[in-house]
């Protein structure tokens, strides 16, 4: 019997919210704390070959559910929160070729969008974010300042950042600061 009930509190519930920086700008940045649904880390078994066709079957079928992390590693992300049983129920699909680790407690998603979004993120990372090099659906694990994050492009002017929960508010504050010259609308309400 647990002495304390564990209550899920969204990581960015108390983060800064509102409008910041330049008041008049047509390149405003929108920051959004995205729903904390499920984050599944999928790791390929040694010598399991190319699994790129298999991994999407773990996801919920949405456009950017699967985000490549490194060789043989993916994050599968969706808005629905899944119980341990529901996650375990997905393992037969992988047929022993890969394992699933629930990271829903450990990583959160931040949406960032706007005409100047590439310029804002380029202040923190060395990855070339130009649409020609970083097309919609592409992901890259990198540093934003000193914070490790998975950057994924979900649209020409839309990115999502998957960041460790404990670093989410620091990254949020840094993103606001990085976007001040363009003006930032930060939305933590969900």
């Amino acid at each position: 019997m647990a002495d304390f009930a564990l209550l899920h509190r969204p990581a960015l519930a108390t983060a800064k919210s509102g409008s910041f920086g330049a008041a008049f700008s047509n390149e405003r940045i929108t920051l959004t704390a995205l729903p904390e649904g499920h984050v599944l880390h999928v790791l390929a078994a040694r010598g399991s070959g190319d699994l790129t066709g298999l991994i999407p079957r773990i996801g919920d079928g949405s456009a950017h559910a699967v985000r490549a992390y490194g060789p043989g590693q993916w994050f599968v992300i969706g808005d629905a929160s899944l119980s341990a049983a529901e996650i375990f129920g997905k393992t037969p699909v992988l047929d022993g070729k890969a394992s699933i680790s629930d990271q829903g407690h450990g990583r959160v998603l931040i949406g960032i969008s706007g005409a100047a979004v590439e310029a804002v993120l380029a202040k923190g990372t060395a990855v070339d974010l130009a649409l020609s090099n970083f097309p919609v659906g592409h992901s890259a694990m990198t540093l934003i300042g000193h914070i490790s994050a998975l950057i994924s492009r979900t649209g020409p002017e839309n990115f999502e950042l998957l960041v460790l929960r404990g670093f989410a508010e620091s990254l949020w504050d840094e993103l606001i600061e990085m976007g001040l010259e363009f003006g930032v609308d930060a939305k933590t309400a969900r």
Partner: protein
Amino acid sequence: MASLIACPHCGPRPKEEFTVRGDAGITRPAPDAGEDAWHAYVYLRDNPRGRHKEHWHHTSGCRRWLVVERDTMTHAVYTVTDASAPGETA
């Protein structure tokens, strides 16, 4: 030190994303190789001038171990390969 490392999985990334382990050319001795061999393996390193192979970990990227062949004098990077590639692990 070389400032851009061309990760074979992620493309060119700044050195801040990596952790350097050191010489990739040394071989782990047998468990009964004796104190001198183990002392040398754990503590003794050359400080080469010129071309050198090292293990680099892409800590803030794909988290793969890489073998970086670089020049300690000119900072030129010659090759970067995944450490799991055949023949790369000493």
